[in-house]
């Protein structure tokens, strides 16, 4: 099917664009938490879209690619959550313009350094 091929190419291009934006976000954002924001979201949809695109180009792989997409959807947010939590527990203070930190009161460790935006 010719039309499926073109849908697949389109998805590959969209995936590439989002992955690029994710990389740009990681470069531009000021601290780890914001970088994770850019990294998680853009790479999730980028990878999903690119893998689905491969599935459209090669229809025999379609079911496999859908399963991989579901696994990415589960694994990506989990890993970024683990990274963010570990960073906070290790004492890395998020950068903020105005201090809004509800998580601070449930910590029992000293926060080492404070960074201003």
């Amino acid at each position, binding site marked *: 099917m010719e039309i499926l091929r073109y849908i697949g190419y389109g998805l590959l291009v969209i995936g590439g664009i*989002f992955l690029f*934006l994710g990389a*740009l*976000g990681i470069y*531009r*954002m*000021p*601290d780890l*938490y*914001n970088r*994770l*924001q*850019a990294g*998680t*979201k*853009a790479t*999730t*949809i980028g990878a999903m879209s690119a893998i689905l695109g491969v599935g459209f180009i090669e*229809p*025999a792989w379609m*079911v*496999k690619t*859908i*399963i991989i997409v579901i696994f990415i*959807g*589960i694994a*990506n*947010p*989990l890993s*970024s*959550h683990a990274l*963010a*939590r570990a960073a*906070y527990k290790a004492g890395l203070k*998020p*950068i*903020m*313009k*105005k*201090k*809004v*930190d*509800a*998580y*601070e009161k*449930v910590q029992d460790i000293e926060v080492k350094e404070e960074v201003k935006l």
Partner: protein
Amino acid sequence: MQDGKSSISKFLYTFIMVFIIWNAFTWPGSFADIQLAEVLTGAFVSLILGLLTNKYFSCCGLQVLMPHKIIFLVQYFFVFIIALIKANLDVAVRVINPALPINPGIVEIKTKLTNDFAKMILANSITLTPGTLTIDVIDDTMYIHWIDVATENPEEAFKEIAEPFEKVLLKIYG
């Protein structure tokens, strides 16, 4: 033993899920090419995995696979996909904007969900939606890093961040 939470129900749920995943990965492209040996191996592996891991893999057994719950799962899927696309456009616009319009902070929200698995799905969905990242879940409180803090009030933040997901999840796991 409560209804739907017995280990037989959990085992069956695990077996079905693992079997579906196995067959999806070994799918040859058409029904005619399916090989019996492949499917039987899958059934055997699913049986072993189901026996060993049903305690950890399944929270509520077969009741999650009831038809009306599957309808809600499909509804959840669409709510989620729309939120995911919005999240990506939102972050993309922020990244491209030369002024980098961010106002980050950590807010807390309270969830009404009691089931651990449902809480995990909610936390994951929040991470994948516009500008929010779940940092920790302690009992019914979620701590969320928000790239553009609109409100510090937990209830208002909840409405902004989690309400559409929780409504559907409550119907499935509630």
